[in-house]
């Protein structure tokens, strides 16, 4: 799906990134905020030399718990909601 999102994240002493909450613009053109409950897995990828961090997260959407994948691109500092 690859939807651009706005992110609040926390970077710890060691440089580890903890995404906290993000928002996106839904079909009606309204902001929708989603909080991240936990991070299940994280990995770095370097496809074609482009560094990205992938986070597998758990959160609540429409009162249902869901898994989604977020991506952070190092060179552009942009976040994307990759899969949900």
């Amino acid at each position, binding site marked *: 799906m*690859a939807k651009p999102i706005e992110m609040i994240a926390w970077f710890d002493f060691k440089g580890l990134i903890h995404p906290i909450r993000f928002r996106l613009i839904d079909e009606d053109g309204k902001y929708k905020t989603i909080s991240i409950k936990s991070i299940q897995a994280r990995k770095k*990828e*370097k*496809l*074609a*030399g*482009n560094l990205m961090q992938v986070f597998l997260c758990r959160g609540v959407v429409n009162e249902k718990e869901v898994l989604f994948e977020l991506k952070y691109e190092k060179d552009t500092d942009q976040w994307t909601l*990759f899969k949900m």
Partner: protein
Amino acid sequence: MEKIVFHVDVNSAYLSWNAVWDLQHGKSLDLRTVPSIVGGDPESRHGIVLAKSVPSKKYGIKTGETLFSALMKCPDLKIVPPRYSMYLKASDAMVEIMREYSPLIERYSIDECFLDMSHVKKKDAVRVATELKDRIHEELGFTVNVGISTGKLLAKMASDFKKPNLVHTLYREEIEKKMWPLPVEDMFMVGPRTAEKLHKMNINTIGELARTNPQFLHARFKKHGYMISCYARGIESSTVKNEGTIEMKGMGNSTTLPFDFTDRISCHNVMLSIGETLVPRLRDSRKLVKTVGIHIRYSDFSSFSIQRTLNFPSDSTSLLMATVCALFDEIWNGEPVRHLGISFSQLKEKDIEQLSLFKDGQTEKMKRMDQVIDMVRKNFGDDSLIRATFINSPVKAFSGGVVEKD
């Protein structure tokens, strides 16, 4: 001890890199699986094919042909513009992995490298090469071919055998079996022109070239004849040179005219408009140019080029364009012109400059004017400041190939 050399060659480099980038950014279509090419501008359909996918080969699409003719062969062809900064990133990442395998790496081009692997035993070479190839695939998402031999030439020939994602060896004892049956145009340094001449001499395979008397080849091709004769027998002794960065060897730009031009001033204006995109690019990369060349293609598709070496390297738009126009006047035969191009070679570092005693007083003034023009255009857009000659002219103030857009 005999050397071991690897040649690593990225399969359809530009196209694979574009494809991997797209996938990483969430596109579902893998460009490598459909007829697709990298090159030009998909909107205006202007430009040439820089790289092609494997499925587009079935349509007979060739690297270097125009987008128009490629679209004639395959109307559904997917066209993506080139993104050089991304290619450089991919290439750097690949070299970073290779550094774990060898201290001696020669970056032959953006997508080809030679590795001196003499610390590896011959019996382990294929295993190590396969590991390297698989790691690049796994970590960076694109495939490469690795050629293994005892020298650069044979390693390069080997990586070209069968694609994609394969490791091949071509040791001395395998030349006869693996290289000699190949058509002579597959030989390194045998271009289409040489191949055509060789065919006329009834030399059709690399084996036939190897068995031809070198003196006979020398009579026809001079020094080049000795060289290809040696190459066909696998004789070549250059070593892998440690080169960390890819030097820019030259830059150029060209444009096909909307209709055939027949007057000198319009052609000069076109040259100038190509220069207006090309020379700022030169200044931006902090280089000076020593050799200026131009290229004219007439409406009957015959083409001519000429180049001239300047007394001192320069990056001044006015000075370089004066040379370009002088070169044009020298070779233009008055026929209708279809296509014009400028090329710069022998690029020099701007930081090291040979000061000339014979520079005219204008030089410093023009340099400062170029700086101001570059700055105005950067801040207020390219169209904010154009040459007066382009007012009410059919020629656009800027022309030539694709500029990277993000």
